[in-house]
């Protein structure tokens, strides 16, 4: 059964080029609601989990194609609507909030840095429980200090900054002006990294961590 797979939303400009094909080589179409455009494809649903990795890269390609040119609000890959009419209703209902976020984030990109225990140095379970807890507390303090140092340094380029604990480590999300990506990387690299820690930078990404609540989890008529 085919469904409407939404990729991203952006503000219309004549010069923005669109990708020819998207997930599973489906044609990429633009749905217009005022100045808002939603990119979508009609795809066979459900996806085969075995193809999820390939589909994710194809999806990413569509979003990046537009994001290279302008700010976008990405949808998550596994979010689909039943058909074009449902997508159009979604756009009509949420256009105002989408446009407001796109205006607010129009010159911005999201950069990320994750700080985590160096490979092989995460607190293990080889010793006693008390020893494990001591190691874990020490590691958390080390990560907290590193994150605090990064926050201070990145203040120079950050319009906004969020920190989130994840199983993979502590993640910093920095909202910065498009074009300041190198400055972000330089500032991170200037921060001394203790030998027990690793860190990884990535970006630029669409500013998904800085969307308003009404956009990141919008109302959908008829959703269960």
């Amino acid at each position, binding site marked *: 059964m085919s469904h409407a797979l939404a990729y991203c939303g952006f503000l219309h400009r004549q010069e923005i080029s669109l990708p020819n094909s998207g997930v599973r080589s489906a044609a990429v179409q633009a749905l217009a609601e005022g100045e808002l455009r939603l990119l979508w494809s009609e795809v066979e649903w459900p996806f085969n*989990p075995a193809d999820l990795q390939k589909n994710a890269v194809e999806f*990413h390609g569509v979003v990046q194609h537009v994001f290279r040119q302008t700010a976008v609000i990405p949808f998550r890959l596994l979010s689909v609507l039943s058909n074009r009419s449902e997508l159009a209703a979604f756009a009509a209902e949420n256009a105002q909030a989408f446009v407001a976020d796109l205006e607010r984030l129009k010159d911005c990109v999201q950069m990320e840095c994750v700080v985590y225990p160096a490979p092989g140095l995460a607190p293990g379970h080889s010793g006693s429980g008390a020893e494990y807890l001591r190691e874990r507390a020490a590691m958390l303090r080390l990560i907290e200090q590193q994150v605090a140092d990064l926050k201070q340094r990145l203040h120079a380029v950050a319009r906004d900054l969020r920190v989130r604990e994840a199983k993979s480590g502590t993640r910093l999300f920095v909202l910065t002006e498009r074009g300041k990506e190198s400055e972000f990387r330089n500032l991170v690299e200037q921060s001394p990294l203790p030998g027990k820690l690793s860190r990884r*930078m990535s970006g630029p*990404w669409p500013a998904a961590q800085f969307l308003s609540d009404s956009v990141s*989890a919008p109302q959908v008529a008829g959703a269960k």
Partner: protein
Amino acid sequence: MPSEFESITLSEPGEGETSLLEIIDHVLNAGVVIHGSLVISLAGVDLVYVGLNVVLTSVETALRNLQSAEEKRSSR
């Protein structure tokens, strides 16, 4: 103004898997969530209705496995 996208390409030697991991993480975990029901196929045969959170939890497990493999490789 041009931006730099080199860090998330798939072709960088030695970083392909990490970049792919980040791409998968982002397309599944970052952005607009449309709450509703999803359908996935298991083993290409059965259709199972599940909530979005269940799918994302499964994906998170897969991502952890990928990251663990990447860490093992980099520690060699």
